[in-house]
Each structure stands twice: as structure tokens, then as C-alpha cells.
């Protein structure tokens, strides 16, 4: 191919894909625009295409109708605790499965991976009854506990841990390291990128989770962001300005965090996805 033709094709492909991407990103742009307008303005004809000055008022409405500040704190608290606990459970298990040979290893791992295939809906009713029996309905632990041993997280960590050279572990043992200290001092430090990927995944998973919190949380004071937004949408007089401001407030920070850390996330996720 001549350089000129090569360049022409390159520009064609890049600009074509840029148009597609712009179309894909329209909902994000529109979310920002709509969040700064009143409900009436959003449904004007023509609809607003540039940001307006109604954001503060929308957030104020949100606070009045749904205790939105409280709701955001609930979501943050639940997602942070969940990320820490599930991260620990998945990392420990991933390491155990990747770096030790023991009786029943394959069978136990296969059992955990079954969790990827069995639909979550199958366990919905019994888990709900279990939470009711424990008198946990409406509590944070009801949201956090059932998904701590997340099969995908365990899978991701086993894949990452497998890349760790055995020699590193053996030399640690030679130096008289106990198994737990070995895990803390030798295994975890080089795993930081994988741990970052896991943490982002777990945080996003919990932050966006909808059906389970919807079922076990009882009143507005304990709602997470998605549950609160969905409950607002169900009201007779839905204030879309307020709802969309809340949606933006929940989605935009997540998108920014993701953009900042995406290098780890995508590569970590891919490490899990491709090797299978």
C-alpha cells in the first residue's frame, strides 16, 4: 500500500469510528445536560442541548424527597465494606487454588465456578427467607454478606496468582517464612495491579447492584443509590430533573474513578477472560 493510500484509509477508519463512539456517548452527554435542567425544561420542545442552571435545585429536591445525601453514604459504606471483605475472601481463595496442590482442589474450584452459571434468581427466595429468619432485613449486612464469595472474583484472582513464579514462594519458605506471612510479605506486594483490578470490579459491582438491595432493604433511610432512584421513578409525579441529577451524581464519579484506574481494570479483567 502506498503511504498516501495508507494515510487515507487510516483517517477514514479513525473518523468513522469516532462518529460511532460519539453516538455511543450521547447518553452520557445528555445525562449531564438533563441533570442541570428542571423537569419542565427537559421535556420542552426543542429539548435542551446545553447545560442549564438547575442542578443545585435538583439536588435539593433529591435531598428532600429521598434523603439523597444519606443514600449516597449508604452506597459508599456498603460498597467499601463489601470491596474490602469480598476482596480478602476472593484473594485468599484465589491464592489457595492457584499455588497449592491439595486433595479436592479441582472439585472444590469447579463447585465455586458453578456459581457463575447458576442464575442468581434461583437463590433469591431462599436467601430472602434466610435474611428474614436472621432478622437482617433492612440491614447493611443483608446486602453485603451473600455475595462475598463471588465466583468471578475468585476466578480472576486464581488467574492472576498463577502468573506468580513458584521460585519466589520457595525462596520465601527457605527464609523460614510461615504460610500466612509468606502470603502477606511475598505474594501480595507484586499482586497490586491485580488487586486494584479486583477492587474496581467489586466496587462497581456493589455500587450498581440493584435487585438484591431492592429486595432486602426496607425503607428510604437504608436505600442504596439505584434503589432510591428506581423508587423515585415509580412515584406518580416523577421529577425527572431530580432523578437524572441523582443518576449523574452516581454515574459520573464512578466513570471518573474508572477512567483514572482503567489501565489496571481492563488488563486485569482480560487476564481472566482470555486464558479460559
Amino acid at each position, binding site marked *: 500500500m502506498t503511504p498516501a493510500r495508507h494515510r487515507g484509509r487510516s483517517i477514514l477508519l*479513525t473518523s468513522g469510528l469516532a462518529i460511532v463512539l460519539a453516538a455511543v456517548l450521547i447518553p452520557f452527554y445528555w445525562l449531564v445536560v438533563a441533570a442541570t435542567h428542571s423537569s419542565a425544561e427537559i421535556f420542552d420542545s426543542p429539548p435542551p442541548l446545553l447545560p442549564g442552571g438547575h442542578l443545585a435545585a435538583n439536588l435539593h429536591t433529591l435531598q428532600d424527597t429521598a434523603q439523597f445525601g444519606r443514600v449516597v453514604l449508604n452506597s459508599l459504606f456498603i460498597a467499601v465494606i463489601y470491596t474490602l471483605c469480598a476482596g480478602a475472601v476472593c484473594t485468599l481463595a484465589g491464592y*489457595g487454588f492457584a499455588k*497449592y496442590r491439595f486433595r479436592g482442589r479441582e472439585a472444590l474450584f469447579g463447585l465455586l465456578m458453578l456459581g457463575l452459571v447458576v*442464575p442468581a434468581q434461583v437463590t433469591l427466595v*431462599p436467601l430472602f427467607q*434466610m435474611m428474614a429468619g436472621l432478622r437482617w432485613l433492612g440491614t447493611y449486612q443483608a446486602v453485603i454478606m451473600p455475595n462475598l464469595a463471588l465466583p468471578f472474583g475468585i476466578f480472576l484472582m486464581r488467574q492472576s496468582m498463577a502468573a506468580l513464579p513458584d521460585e519466589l514462594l520457595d525462596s520465601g519458605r527457605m527464609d523460614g517464612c510461615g504460610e500466612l506471612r509468606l502470603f502477606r510479605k511475598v505474594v501480595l506486594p507484586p499482586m497490586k495491579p491485580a488487586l486494584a483490578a479486583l477492587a474496581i470490579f467489586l466496587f462497581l459491582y456493589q455500587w450498581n447492584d440493584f435487585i438484591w438491595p431492592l429486595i432486602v432493604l426496607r425503607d428510604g433511610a437504608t436505600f442504596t443509590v439505584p434503589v432510591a432512584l428506581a423508587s423515585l421513578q415509580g412515584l406518580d409525579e416523577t421529577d425527572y430533573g431530580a432523578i437524572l441529577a441523582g443518576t449523574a451524581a452516581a454515574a459520573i464519579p464512578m*466513570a471518573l474513578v474508572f477512567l483514572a484506574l482503567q489501565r489496571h481494570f481492563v488488563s486485569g479483567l482480560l487476564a481472566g477472560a482470555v486464558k479460559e
Partner: protein
Amino acid sequence: MTATLTGGKPRAVASRGPAPRSRPRRRVAPYLFVLPALLLFAVFKIYPIGRSFVISLHKTVGGSERFVGADNYTRLMGDPLFWTALKNTAVILVVQVPVMLALATGLAVALNSTLLRGRALFRLGFFLPMITGLVAYGIVFSVLLGKDYGLVNWLLGLAGLDPVPWLTDPLWAKVSLGLALTWHYTGYNAVILLARLQTVPAELYDAAAVDGAGAWTSFRHVTLPGLRPALLLTTVLSTIGTLQIFDEPYVLTGGGPDNATLTIGVYLYQNAFKYFDFGYASAIAYALAVLIGILGVIQFRFLGDKS
């Protein structure tokens, strides 16, 4: 007490010979590492899976559970709403999933092309919808697609077209649901396919070019075979995801209009947490699990064997 302890210990060690101190610990260590995960999994996944089956054989009558055998399953077979939900889910599976995976494949090939400038930026941009919560994008789409005041219909109006009843007409509601799903998951699937594509050796493309293969021929004979394992993965994941689909129709259309977007997931939710008919909901859940199992096996047969 002290005697038995000190008396027992040396003997146990002696029987294993002069092993280093860490040997027995190394034997129990792996079990301790995987124990928390297994315990939590047993309590919150395996037990509920079994319990769900028991519930599906019962009916709640006046606050107490009564054993009814296979009644819930017989009722399921004759329930037109269940068949509607199954049909709707099947339509999404047959129409939306292949379209999305074709788009994702094209996107992956484009993102892999050396002709493309700013590849990292594009990859990121197309992945962004995936991190958006289902409720968030459901709400955004429901407003964007509003019939009289939605942005999409306003744009169609500019182009001289009539407004489309996106969410209020049974057929268009299905289309809207498909659009929302495609928007959300295409980039994610493209990234999985892209990762696989990057492992296809460049020499294969060079060899094809030397043999005089055009773009289409080399795509068919080099790219597609190379993608097969990743296509299997994305197909299976999309199938499982589609069969369980709940959030999108719940937020976007509530299952309507006229049950046009009622999925198995939504129907299960309605029975369990609107009518509190736990037995029937559990029967639906088990029917769903069996369906996923069957489709998973079929897909592995079709796509997996030839690799």
C-alpha cells in the same frame, strides 16, 4: 492434660521423620486459604439452591407451607404468561445477541487495526457504557426514548420522520430493550474479543496476503477461526445474561406494554415479591436454571468441539 499434650506431640512429628517445621502447616494452609470462600459459598449459594427446590414443591397457604408435589411445575406449563415471558426472552436471544456479537466482532477488528489512531482512547470510550449501572442507564434511556418529548423523537422530527412510540408499542418496546442492551454490552464483548484477537499471530495475516487473500477472505479464514474460543465465551456469557435479564425491563418498561417485554426474570420477581407466591417463583427459577443448563451444553457442542 499437659502430659497428654506434650506426650502426643513429639510422637506425631516423629512418625513423619525429621520434617521441617513448616511441612504440616503447608498441608493445612491451602484449606485455610480457601475455607472462608467455601463456607460463605456453602451457606449463601449451595444451601439456597437446594432450598429453592424444596420451596418449589410447596405452596404457601394462610402463612403456612403445604407440600403440593409437582403442582407448581404443572401450573407453570399451562401458564400463558410464563410462555409469553419465555418467548420474549427467546426473541432477545435470537435477535439481539447475534446482532450484538456481530457488532462486537466488527468493533474488535477495527480496534485492533494498525490503521486506527488513538486506539487506547477508543477502547476506553466503548467500554464506558459497561460500567454504568443498569438502573442509571435504564432511567436515561426511558427519558431519551419518551414518545412526545424524548430527544430521539425530536431528532427524528428534525429529519422529517414521524415520532416512534418507543416504549408504549409492544414491538417498539422490544426494539428499545434490544437497543439498550446492545448499547450496554457491545463494548464489553468487543474488549474480550479484542484480547483474543491480539494473540492471533501477524504471520498468519502476512501469509494470507501473500496468497492473495483480500480483506474478507483473511477475515473468514484467519480472524474468525482465531476468535472461536472468545466467541464461545461471549456467546455463553451473553446467553446466560439474557436468560436472567431483569433490571433493564424492570426500569425501562416494567415488563409492558401488554407484557411485550416481560422476561422470565421479571415474571419471577413479580411472583415472588409482588404476589409473595414463593413456591411458584421457585418453580420458575428452576425452569430457568434447567434452560440455562441445556443451552450451555448445546453451545459448547456447537462452538467448542471444532477448536
